[in-house]
């Protein structure tokens, strides 16, 4: 049964995913990879919400619903982001994040 796995284990996993996402965001040069890393962060949050809801407050479903919305918004975000990536690619023929440092200081 799922109750055999303590909440802390799940939270450890989610935290790990969160930091993997953060790490990916910081190291990936390709913007798509960065976007995926952000998705990882959001998924860590989703795991948190679902697990907490299930373990601690099973009588209300706020956490589950929140997760659904996060997934939805993440999709929208990705759509816009990729549109901009394409736009950028049209302009500079690259989506390497190190290339987009025209504006600085």
């Amino acid at each position: 049964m799922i109750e055999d796995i303590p909440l802390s284990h799940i939270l450890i996993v989610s935290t790990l995913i969160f930091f993997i996402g953060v790490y990916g965001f910081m190291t990936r040069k390709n913007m798509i990879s960065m976007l995926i890393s952000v998705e990882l962060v959001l998924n860590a949050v989703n795991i948190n919400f679902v697990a907490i809801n299930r373990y601690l407050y099973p009588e209300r479903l706020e956490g589950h619903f929140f997760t659904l919305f996060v997934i939805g918004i993440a999709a929208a975000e990705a759509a816009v982001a990729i549109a901009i990536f394409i736009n950028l690619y049209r302009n500079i023929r690259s989506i390497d994040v190190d290339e987009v440092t025209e504006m600085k200081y």
Partner: protein
Amino acid sequence: MENYQYTIWILILPFAAFLFTGILSGKLKPSLTATISIGAIGIATALSYLAAIQYFFLNASESYTAVEAASFTWYRLSDTLVIDMGILIDPISVMMLVVISTVSFMVHIYSTGYMKGDDGYARYFTFLSLFSFAMLGLVLATNLIQIYVFWELVGLSSYLLIGHYYQKPSAVAAAKKAFIVTRFADLGFLIGILMLSYYTGTFSFSDITNPDGPLITQTIGGTFLGLSTLTWAMILVFMGGAGKSAMFPFHIWLPDAMEGPTPISALIHAATMVVAGVYLVARMFTVYSLAAPEALEVIAFIGAFTSLFAALIAITQTDIKKILAYSTISQIGYMMMALGVSGYSGEAGLGFTASMFHLFTHAFFKALLFLGAGSIIHAVHSNEMKDMGGLRKHLPATHITFLIATLAISGIPPFSGFFSKDEILAAAYASNKLYFAVEYLVAGLTAFYMFRLYFNVFWGKKRTYENIHESPASMTIPLWILAFGAAFAGFLPFSHLVTTDGIPFDTHFHLTIAIASVAIALTGIFIAAALYRKESTRSQKIAATLGVFYTVTKEKFYVDEIYLFITKKIIFNLISKSIAWFDRHIVDGFMNLTGNTTVAASFRIRKFQSGNIHQYALVFLTGVLIATLVYLYYYPK
């Protein structure tokens, strides 16, 4: 109580003349300006004599008491400390009134001839009125602040009149020097006033000099360097007097002040303003004598020293006005010394009386000497003795009057100087033999250098002059009038009029001292006659044998150079320049540095904004982590 209300016009008239001619300067004809000024001082002179007669001779009582003829509140510093402007009538102020108004009136008349055709004719008379007003106000002052106010005003008019020929660099420099040196001395005066007012809570002379008043009967303040606070205050007050009266070491401005027109030298720098310092000490004499005898010792010392010092310099000078200037310094030293050795009340106060007496007589003969010198200069257009000689034929009136004055200053009876000098010597003899010796020597020196001057100018080598003639009547008449004063002023019974406490006493004639002093004066005269009456090289030979000593005296003991060194090198270059540098580079530099650092910092940190998203996210995360860690550390629950 007599009514002296009218004395207020003595002040109002010259001031009105000054304002009127000053504001309308350029609009009035110069001669009209002169007429207005002369009219004003003429009436003031008449009123002064009226006051003198009323005070001294129509006075019923045995002693002379001070009368406040007028007074109004001018300024209120606090509920207790009030500054009045008023008129104080007492023996010395009335005596001064007579001196000032007479000399001033004479100089006014004289100037119409002397200054004729000058560009600044109108301006000259305007300032002359200002001076008369200020000087009369000074002697009539009822309190310390009033005297300080007029003190500064006479300084101003002296400045303006020395600088009359403002296109001449030396005159400008002399005017500036006179103002600044006296200003420096006045600093002491002002601090002295501050100290006195702090301890007494009043500025009024009648309170301060009251022999039974708190200032004199009680000890005030602590001591500093072994002298009481009051002594220090009185020494500081004397410092102001020393500045105005050109006492060593503040004497340096007076010889330079001779750059002014000669009538100005006669009026301001011989007869009236320069004796203001003596007057000031006399005004405060009760305090000096009864509560600050140490200060009086200082005065005596400075006076004696200055009289000798200046007499020595006078011997070697060649500019006739400079000789007279040093002579003035020397004679004022006499007066100061006399005050310094004087006691209080009765015959002990002989020095005081003698000093005032000498002030009185000196005013006449010294003014006369200067006006005579003016007449000479007017004729030969030079100040230097080498340009003169044998003038007695060409300038008969000037010659006679000048001789009278020279005899008077040399102390030859029956001329006025003899009487007053004799009293001073007697007073010195009674008090301090050393001072007597010094003054005795100075009497001889005086006779010597005055006759050196006299012989050099009127005798000596014959020369031919172009276009030389005696001065006009407007100049010679004042000479004669003053000569009358110089000749006969000595017969006034001064000890019956002016005494320390207002109670007359009888003076005794000191025969031995008189004979001795006449003897040394005659000695001086004979030496001078031997050296200078005929053209000869004897004097040069003597000068050569004296060597260094001669050079040092001729160079006025290098006092000017010392001053120049202190002001130019030390104060200007060392202190002032470095402060100006400090201000620009350190203080202001610090302000600029703050600004520059900010701007530099803004350039330094620009790498922070590298444009790279990775770095942005890293900074973001670092911020989050630091905040998290700090809060987890400080709020562990």
